[in-house]
């Protein structure tokens, strides 16, 4: 029983972690916390739902088309809304992403209405395999683990060995120096937003397949993923995934013991971590000399 709880916790936790990676990428390059991440992913998931169910496009084609759309949406939002406001204060930047959030939520509500839709992935949440005893794992969870592992590996190589990857880290650490060695910072931001939007969308598809699709369906996962990100330190990708796993398991176990408390476990975790380790559990900051 406990093994099952933990396994399920790990699965949802991986999903939180995957979604949290999306924050990390934008935060790492531009120090913006993207409050519209959830709605960007929601909107793209609706896009996929739309072409899947209305035009009956084959799954893989619509999947790729959706990722393309997600990248486009990310680039566009950054270019249209964030770039002109690059010199705003933190409040201004948060305000802009909050603005984008409610715009997207409104658009989705306008276009697709508020009723809940069913979003189907080829990997089902209900088809399960028994591992041992009464512990089983769903196709959904397997696919999720594989995807998360792939994304993490890809990102590891990207940030470690590719030129744009190193440049992305460089831009975040020292934008002035990056410009001086000739980095086109604008292009780096576009890339970051595109990547983040794509990864967020993949995570959102898993969430949608596990629950239902409506304009608000990403709100709760958003807060959880944010908690995971904070837990991991909004800086390191493995840290964030680990944060997601811890959160997912904690939530499932606590939720089993006190069913009422499940929704606020994440919140309590956020507050506690922030109070005692303001920069997260797994981040070792290089401290700048004042």
């Amino acid at each position, binding site marked *: 029983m406990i093994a099952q709880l933990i396994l399920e916790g790990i699965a949802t936790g991986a999903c939180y972690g995957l979604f949290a990676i999306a924050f990390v990428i934008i935060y790492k390059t531009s120090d913006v916390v993207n409050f519209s991440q959830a709605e960007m992913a929601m909107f793209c998931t609706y896009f996929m739902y739309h072409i899947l169910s209305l035009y009956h496009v084959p799954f893989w084609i619509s999947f790729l088309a959706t990722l393309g759309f997600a990248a486009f949406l990310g680039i566009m939002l950054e270019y249209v809304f964030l770039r002109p406001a*690059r*010199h705003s204060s933190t409040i201004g930047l948060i305000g802009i992403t909050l603005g984008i959030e409610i715009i997207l939520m409104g658009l989705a509500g306008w276009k697709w209405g508020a009723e809940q839709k069913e979003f189907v992935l080829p990997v089902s949440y209900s088809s399960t395999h028994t591992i041992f005893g009464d512990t089983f794992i769903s196709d959904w969870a397997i696919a999720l683990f594989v995807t998360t592992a792939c994304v993490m590996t890809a990102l590891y190589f990207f940030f470690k060995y590719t*030129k744009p990857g*190193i*440049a992305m*880290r*460089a831009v975040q*650490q*020292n934008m*002035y*120096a*990056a*410009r*001086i*060695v*000739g*980095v*086109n910072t604008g292009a780096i931001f576009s890339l970051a937003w595109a990547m983040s939007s794509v990864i967020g969308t993949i995570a959102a598809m898993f969430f949608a397949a596990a629950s239902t699709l409506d304009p608000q369906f990403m709100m709760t996962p958003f807060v959880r993923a944010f908690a995971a990100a904070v837990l991991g330190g909004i800086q390191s990708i493995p840290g964030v995934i680990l944060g997601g796993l811890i959160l997912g398991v904690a939530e499932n176990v606590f939720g089993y013991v006190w069913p009422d408390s499940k929704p606020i476990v994440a919140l309590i975790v956020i507050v506690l971590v922030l109070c005692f380790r303001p920069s997260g559990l797994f981040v070792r900051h*290089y401290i*700048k000399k004042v």
Partner: protein
Amino acid sequence: MKALLKLSGIETWHGSICALKHVSLEVFQGQIAVLLGPNGAGKTTVLKTVMRSLYDQKRAQPEKGSIEFEGKRIDRLKTGEIVRRGIGCVPEGREIFPELTVRENILMGAYTRRGGKDIRADIETVYRYFPILRERKDRQAGYLSGGEQQLLAIARALMGRPKLLMLDEPSLGLSPMMTREIFEIIRSINLQEGMTVLVIEQNANIALQYAHYVFLLENGRVVHAGKPEVMKRDKRVREAYLGSSDNSSP
């Protein structure tokens, strides 16, 4: 002699404050030029105006005047393009990437270049100039000492294969010995590669020793220019920058 970099009548504003007032200067091919001046005189602004890295790219251009590099105007180009044309820059306070490794920092210097082979060869060359960096190559740059960071910043700038290398206060925060070492390296790069160098300095003594030509900047204006031998004899320069080191004179 040909002017590699030529600033004519530059005026730059920081908000409502005029930081540079009609600055004109020429840096000649193959020379070490030094821009000397006290804190707040606008030395760094000169560098930033050339690189167009004040605020953001749109506004980082001189309000008046022109900047020419190899006879072509560059004051409307983007920073990336300026780097590609051949201006390398070692900014004030090093400005390295603290959480990248030393090697990655050096690689970033070649950001505007293509061709992995050339770049790898150049990294080797740079390691030959600065053997300490080879030793530290996998360490996070933020943990290097001040002098090592300064070397790293120079190495990074060299990776762009610049025709003109600009250094902003390379002596900042370094011991006299380290400062001397850095200037020796600058001189040897200048001699071996024929690279033109523009150094911004507060430390008059060392600057005058290594410079071929000196510009004196005060309150956003070039108030004096000439060969170092001439400058050293100038009474005003002595008083202001060398301290009244000879106590005999009244």
